[in-house]
C-alpha cells in the first residue's frame, strides 16, 4: 500500500466561481455512481478452499463492514499485497504485514481488533479488520468526490495502491502502469481464485445483458471504457464517458461472466485470441464476436446477440447501438470466445 498523497485543498475548489464549477461538472460528466447501465454490485461467495484456515474467521467477520468491500476482494488484495505472509515487510516503504500497511496509515487506522492489548499489523486478527476499515473509508471518501469517473471499488483499490490524492488529482485511476495493473490483478483474483464460479448456463445471457444495458444510453468514446464500466475517451471524445468497440465487448464478457472471461483490450487482440474458433455466418450464436478489417489489421468488433442483430459501439458521436449485422464491406468473420476463451487465453 502506498502512502496517501496530499489532497488538494478543498478551499481552492470552493473558491471557484459557481458557474465554472457547473461547467466543470457538466463536462466531466458522471459521478462514480450515476453512470448508465452499471450492473449492481454482486456479492460473490467466498471460495473458502483458497483461503488459509487461520484467515477465514477474521475475513468473514471483516467483510460485513461495508457492502462494497467483499470477502473475495479482501482476499485478493491480501494475495497481491503479501501473498498471505503475515510477516511480509518491505524495507523501502516499511510496509508491513498481510495488507502491507505503511506506518503512517497504520497509526491512523490500525486497531487492536482482537483485544490482545496490541494493535499489530503483523497479526492477521488486527490487520484484516484494519484493511477492511481502511478500504471502507476509501469507498466512503471517494463516493463523496463527484467528479471521479470509474467504478467505486476500482477507485478504492487505486487509492489503496497510489493514495487517494492521486485518484483525486486524476479524477479516476491514475495513469500509472503499476496502479492499473494492481486494480486489474485484484479484480481478477477476486472473481476467479477467491470466488465461487457462477453457473455457466447463464453466462451468454448475462454477457448480452451487460452490453444491452448500454444500448441507446451510453456514448461511443474512442479509447474509453474499462472492464467495469464506461470511462473518459481521447480526442475527439475527450469529454465523453463511454466505450469504444473493443472495450464494450470486453466489458460485456467480463461483467457477464462475473470476471471469469476477460478478453484482450483491442479488436486486433480479441481477434487473435479467438481466431482459432471461427464461426461461419450461418452458424452464428448469441455471444459470438463479429470482426471487420483484415487479419493483420482488425479495426472493428461487435457482439452478435441473435436474430441477425448485433450490439456495437459504432463511432464517435453515436450511442451504443443495436443494429442489423453488416456483412458488406470488409467484414472479416466471426469467432466464438465463450468457452474457448476461458481455456486458451
Amino acid at each position, binding site marked *: 500500500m502506498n502512502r496517501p498523497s496530499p489532497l488538494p485543498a478543498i478551499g481552492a475548489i470552493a473558491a471557484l466561481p459557481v458557474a465554472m464549477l457547473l461547467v466543470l461538472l457538466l463536462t466531466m460528466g458522471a459521478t462514480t455512481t450515476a453512470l448508465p447501465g452499471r450492473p449492481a454490485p454482486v456479492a460473490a461467495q467466498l471460495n473458502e478452499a483458497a483461503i488459509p484456515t487461520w484467515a477465514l474467521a477474521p475475513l468473514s467477520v471483516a467483510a460485513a463492514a461495508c457492502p462494497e468491500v467483499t470477502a473475495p476482494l479482501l482476499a485478493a488484495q491480501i494475495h497481491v499485497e503479501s501473498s498471505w505472509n503475515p510477516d511480509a515487510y518491505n524495507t523501502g516503504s516499511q510496509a508491513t504485514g498481510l495488507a502491507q500497511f505503511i506506518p503512517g496509515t497504520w497509526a491512523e487506522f490500525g486497531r487492536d481488533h482482537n483485544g490482545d492489548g496490541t494493535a499489530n499489523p503483523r497479526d492477521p486478527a488486527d490487520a484484516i479488520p484494519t484493511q477492511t476499515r481502511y478500504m471502507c473509508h476509501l469507498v466512503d471518501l471517494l463516493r463523496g468526490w463527484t467528479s471521479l469517473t470509474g467504478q467505486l471499488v476500482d477507485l478504492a483499490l487505486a487509492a489503496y*495502491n497510489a493514495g487517494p490524492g492521486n485518484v483525486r488529482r486524476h479524477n479516476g485511476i491514475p495513469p500509472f502502469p503499476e496502479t*492499473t495493473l494492481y486494480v486489474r490483478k485484484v479484480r481478477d483474483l477476486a472473481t476467479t481464485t477467491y470466488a465461487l464460479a457462477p453457473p455457466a448456463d447463464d453466462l451468454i445471457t448475462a454477457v448480452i445483458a451487460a452490453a444491452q444495458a448500454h444500448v441507446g444510453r451510453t456514448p461511443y468514446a474512442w479509447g474509453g471504457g474499462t472492464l467495469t464500466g464506461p470511462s473518459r475517451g481521447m*480526442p475527439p471524445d475527450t469529454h465523453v464517458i463511454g466505450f469504444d468497440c473493443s472495450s464494450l465487448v470486453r466489458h460485456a464478457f467480463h461483467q457477464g461472466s462475473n470476471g471469469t472471461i*476477460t478478453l484482450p*483490450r483491442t479488436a486486433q487482440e480479441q481477434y487473435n485470441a479467438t481466431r482459432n474458433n471461427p464461426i461461419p455466418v450461418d452458424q452464428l450464436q448469441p455471444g459470438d464476436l463479429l470482426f471487420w478489417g483484415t487479419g493483420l*489489421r482488425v479495426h472493428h468488433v461487435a457482439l452478435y446477440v441473435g436474430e441477425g442483430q448485433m450490439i456495437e459501439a459504432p463511432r*464517435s458521436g453515436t450511442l451504443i447501438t443495436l443494429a442489423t449485422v453488416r456483412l458488406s464491406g470488409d467484414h472479416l468473420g466471426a469467432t466464438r470466445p465463450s468457452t474457448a476463451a476461458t481455456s486458451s487465453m
Partner: protein
Amino acid sequence: MDNHWRSTAIAVTALIAAGGYSSPPPAPPARPVADIRSAVTETCARFAVAAVSIDATVDADSSAARLRAAREYGTSGLVDQVAGHGTDPTWSLLHEHRARIRATAEPVHDDPPPVLDGSDQPAGVIVTRTAVAENGWQQSLPSLVFYCTVRSTPAGWRISQVNIADTSSS
C-alpha cells in the same frame, strides 16, 4: 501489423535501447492525413516505450522512466500528470534481478478516428514488455495500451495526456 508499423516498432525499440533519438518528430502545419496519423502514432509509441523502460540499475523507482519520457515527449502538463506512483511489485522483481524492461509498441487500429482540425490528435499503441537482466534472465510482463492525446506545438508533436489500460486476458 503492417510492414510500416512492424519496422516502426523495431526502430523505436532499437532507438530506445541505443539511447538514440533526442527530439520528437516535427509537426508541420499542413501535411497529408496519412502523414499526420503516422507521426502522432509514432510519437505515442516512442513515449509509451520510453515510459515503461524502467532500468532498476539506475532508476530510483518505477516512476522514473515515465517522468523521463514525459520530459522528452510530453508537454509540461504531462510531467505533472504522470508524477507520483503506486506500489509496484514489478519494481521489486526488477531490483532483485538488476534488470530493465525492454518494450515494443504496435498501433491500435480500433475504429480509427479522423484526423482532427484542432491541435490535438488521438493515437493508441499496445506496449509489450519483457524484463531482462545482464545475466540472461528474462520474464514477460503484462502488456499495456497507451491512449495518447498528441498536441501540435512549435517544438513538434508532444503528448499532452495519456490514458493507460491493461490488455491481458484470462
